[in-house]
């Protein structure tokens, strides 16, 4: 393994009622900025927040976990994609509405020494999770290349922010409506030879492709995964992935507390949704070595 697992965050999360300070349409998404100083001051790039949706008597009990885009000056910004009823409710919040939010949650991206050039790869609204990281890396003088891709122009995200922060930015769309036509992975191949570390956030297929490409060239790659989570804080055990630990053994690891940032080479992408025999405790489930 090339990567070292991301360490726990330095500070524990808090639960707060946070008013919406700003709401902005960003292509197909809604960017919300909330007034949450105690969350903002604790946030490390790569962490996420978990929102309760629908109010105190909501029939939708599960929290919606969303990556933090930026945190600073007492505010936290997220980009929300309306997918189901919960995320749609979030996108409908207006300035002044209060949100029940828990955060920051999970482990952030490990930060490399300043001299290590970094390649950041975002897919769809996953690019939002890289903005805070890009800012942190630039602050310490790291050379940053960013690739933002999406199916089509309206599904791109955070391109202006990444353009402002990164030394080089490439945009790709599957249908060619913006930037280069094609998948992000083509652009990634081009920039990999100059990268000392890769960070990626986006759909699982993209994370796998980027991680495989980086690992094949011995470049450490950290991915921020988006598994569906019920709680976001580590108690429900629904968001697990097969991940190889430092001892070389695979465990069902929680994306919320052991992730969302994992060494890409440690995530067994091909085995997601299955129970491989060599996962710790698979024998007790009746799954044995073939």
């Amino acid at each position, binding site marked *: 393994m090339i990567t070292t697992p991301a360490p726990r965050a330095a500070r524990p999360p808090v639960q707060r009622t946070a008013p919406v300070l700003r709401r902005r349409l960003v292509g197909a998404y809604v960017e919300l900025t909330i007034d949450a100083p105690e969350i903002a001051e604790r946030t490390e790039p790569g962490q996420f927040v978990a929102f309760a949706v629908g109010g105190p008597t909501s029939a939708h009990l599960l929290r919606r976990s969303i990556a933090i885009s930026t945190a600073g000056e007492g505010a936290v910004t997220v980009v929300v994609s309306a997918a189901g009823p919960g995320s749609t409710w979030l996108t409908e919040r207006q300035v002044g509405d209060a949100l029940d939010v828990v955060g920051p949650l999970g482990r952030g991206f490990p930060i490399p020494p300043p001299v290590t050039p970094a390649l950041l790869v975002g897919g769809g609204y996953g690019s939002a999770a890289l903005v805070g990281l890009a800012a942190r890396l630039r602050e310490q003088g790291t050379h940053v290349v960013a690739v933002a891709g999406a199916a089509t122009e309206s599904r791109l995200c955070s391109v202006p922010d990444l353009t402002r922060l990164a030394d080089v930015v490439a945009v790709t769309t599957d249908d060619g409506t913006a930037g280069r036509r094609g998948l992000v992975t083509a652009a990634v191949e081009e920039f990999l030879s100059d990268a000392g570390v890769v960070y990626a956030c986006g759909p699982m297929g993209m994370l796998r492709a980027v991680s495989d490409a980086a690992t094949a060239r011995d470049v450490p790659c950290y991915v921020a995964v988006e598994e*569906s989570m019920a709680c976001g804080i580590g108690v429900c055990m629904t*968001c697990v992935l097969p991940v190889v630990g430092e001892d070389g053994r695979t465990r069902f690891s929680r994306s919320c507390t052991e992730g969302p940032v994992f060494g890409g080479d440690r995530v067994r992408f091909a085995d997601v949704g299955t129970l491989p025999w060599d996962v*710790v405790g698979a024998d007790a489930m009746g799954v044995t070595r073939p």
Partner: protein
Amino acid sequence: MTVVDAGIDMSTALGRVAIPSPVLTASGCSAFGQELEPFVDLSAIGAVVTKSVQLRPRSGRPTPRMAETPSGMLNSIGLQGPGIDGLLADDLPWLAERGARAFVSIAGTRVEDFAELAERLRGAPGVLGLEVNISCPNVESRGEVFACDPAAASDVIAAVRAAADPAHPVYAKLSPDVTDIVGVARAVTDAGADGLSMINTLLGLVIDPDTMRPVLGGVTGGLSGPAIRPVALRCVWQVHQALPEVPILGMGGIRSGLDALQFVLAGASAVSVGTAVFNDPSAVARVHDELAGALAQRGFAGIGEAVGHAHRAAA
């Protein structure tokens, strides 16, 4: 969190063991307590009811493990956990160091598994008692769930009671998926259960209309959350009516103090807050405060005098 609110005596007991609050976590909904530390004073709540522990570490089932349903969720985790060795080495000492009481949920697929777990937990630091998760398939009876068979359920409880530390109250956790829950309650009480935890999840299914296949990797799953609250309350009511002297730890969709109050009025002397913790990590402490306020508003001096109140004829 205030343990005594508005002069209300919130102390109660599990079996004969006193606890300062009637509000506990629910098994499988708060892991082993660590993750709640930023949100709740773990030493002030009634107890941390642990995720069910088995003899060996378990990976749990493949994903997807969860589907949101109206006012609830379906889960099929498969009892992922560290096994009894991990619990004794790491989780129980962690809770004990913080002064938190652990009500340890134990599970197995053989009567002897349960007995061995009870034996291993004798004298373990911070252990208040045992909740016996009998909603597991019995490998010696073609996978029939212990909780659905009064005889098999009794065998487990008798074995656990015999093996457990005499100071540890043993609660049997009952499944609502039976035709006669009072019969099962009577059987396990006769077998030595000091109390009853009611209820476990209801078996459910969700099919994805796009893939046209079950959503969960495990196909079926346990339904929890406010959607099941009336079923849970009915079970507590029926069992308290039949066995008024048996202590009940009530659970099933409790989200607020008024929800908890309903369980107390139906006959529960303590309650567990489960799925609501996913919605609100501070729910256990909040429900305690809301319940204290609700009892005070209704003129109760303490929780004890409210237990089973709904069964008594109106004055």
